[in-house]
């Protein structure tokens, strides 16, 4: 859909996400050192690794919440590292779910969901509302449309956050440790929604510590450490038959 819009430099290909030679530094600290990834349509890529390995930073580079230091990121054929690309337009097609939900505290659940599409004139007010109610039903929160975020549990907040991202009709979804801030009994409800999404063919990149989720849902697992991709492959290859010593070491600690 976005391909028909003129968003600046365009590169064709069926890959949804292409990352080439990505480097990212915060001051003198190099967090990402030469990252190369390709994600094709419908793939669910799970990033795992110890904290500080750069996986969240990598995810945040994909929609340019972090500016890259060097390298190229192509989303849906649009080079987002190119200054001439309208990043706001590209972001409309990339949903993002945050560790701390980041729901808008001053708005109801419904308004949280309809704010962006209505402001950006993607949907009319009525369309947005109808769609939001359907999405809320899908994530099991149809009765919470008029509630404020402060009245929801963590799991409910995160499900609203996912619904809010889906309201924009994205074709890529990024998840930044979506269950890390949740009480253990609420992790399941959020993962269930994510599994549902994966099954429907959504292209997803997920940073998580939920190895079980990776094993069950991921089409590919990437293990990162120290700003490098150490190992990547199917869940079976990376999680059950890791080759690299650092992967084995990490998995022995988390499993």
């Amino acid at each position, binding site marked *: 859909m976005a391909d028909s819009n003129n968003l600046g430099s365009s590169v064709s290909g069926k890959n949804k996400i292409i990352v080439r030679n990505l480097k990212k530094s915060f001051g003198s600290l190099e967090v990402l050192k030469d990252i190369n990834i390709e994600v094709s349509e419908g793939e669910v890529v799970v990033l795992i690794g110890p904290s500080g390995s750069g996986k969240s930073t990598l995810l945040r580079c994909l929609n340019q919440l972090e500016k890259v230091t060097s390298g190229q990121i192509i989303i849906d054929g649009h080079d987002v590292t190119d200054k001439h690309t309208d990043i706001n337009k590209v972001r409309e097609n990339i949903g993002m779910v*945050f560790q701390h939900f*980041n729901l808008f*505290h001053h708005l109801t659940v419904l308004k949280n969901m309809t*704010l962006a599409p209505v402001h950006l004139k993607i949907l009319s007010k009525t369309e947005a509302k109808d769609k939001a109610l359907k999405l809320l039903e899908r994530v099991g929160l149809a009765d919470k449309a008029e509630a*404020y975020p402060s009245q929801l549990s963590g799991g409910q907040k995160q499900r609203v956050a996912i619904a809010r991202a889906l309201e924009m009709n994205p074709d890529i979804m990024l998840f930044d440790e979506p269950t890390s801030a949740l009480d253990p009994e609420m992790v399941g409800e959020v993962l269930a929604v994510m599994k549902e999404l994966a099954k429907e063919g959504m292209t997803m990149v997920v940073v998580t510590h939920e190895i079980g989720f990776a094993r069950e849902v991921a089409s590919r697992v990437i293990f990162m450490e120290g700003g490098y991709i150490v190992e990547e492959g199917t869940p079976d290859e990376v999680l059950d038959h890791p080759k690299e010593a650092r992967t084995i070491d990490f998995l022995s600690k988390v499993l």
Partner: protein
Amino acid sequence: MMMIIQTYGTMLIKALGQTVLLTVLSLVFAMIIGMAFGLMNVGHNRLLNFIGTVYVDAVRGVPLIVLAYFIYFGIPQGIHSLGFTDFRMGPLLAGTITLSMNCGAYMAEIIRAGIQSVDRGQMEAGRSLGLSYSAGMALIVVPQAIRTMIPSIINQFIITLKDSSILSVIAFPELVNVGKTIMGNTMKCLETWAIIGAMYMVVIITLSKVSKKIERRVNRGR
């Protein structure tokens, strides 16, 4: 006491009106100035940051009475020396500029602090949905910041109302100025200043009562 009220009652009420007029005008402009400089200071543009900081530091670094003299006496002289000898600035205009600039600088700080108190994730969530920085500010960050800013803003309103008394030095006919006249005419210092003090108090206490109500209403939705 009764003599003063009988003789000077209308004059005092008029003066109170002038005080309120000057304060309200200044608050309106101060909000605009404060919003502009406050936003400059939270943005990531170095030049705007610099301009914002210079403004706030300059105004806060000068006593209000000096600023008033500078604007009322200094600026017209400067403009005259440029050849525009017809230029005139009345006490109301000079007073409004002085108070707006002063209050605006403090307001900028209140607004900056309010905006920075909103979690960064709020803006990030907005941006990730495709909103521009300014849309994120206007629709997400500022509405949340205002809630935390309201007590400080009302406090600043009260300070500005009291600061308006300083403009008696540039012949603006507000309460203190009129009080000086009454004191000169009657020699009844105790009564005069008690009455003037009471008038300020009534307005300010009413204002803080109203502010408490607003605060409670705003916090209800949270």
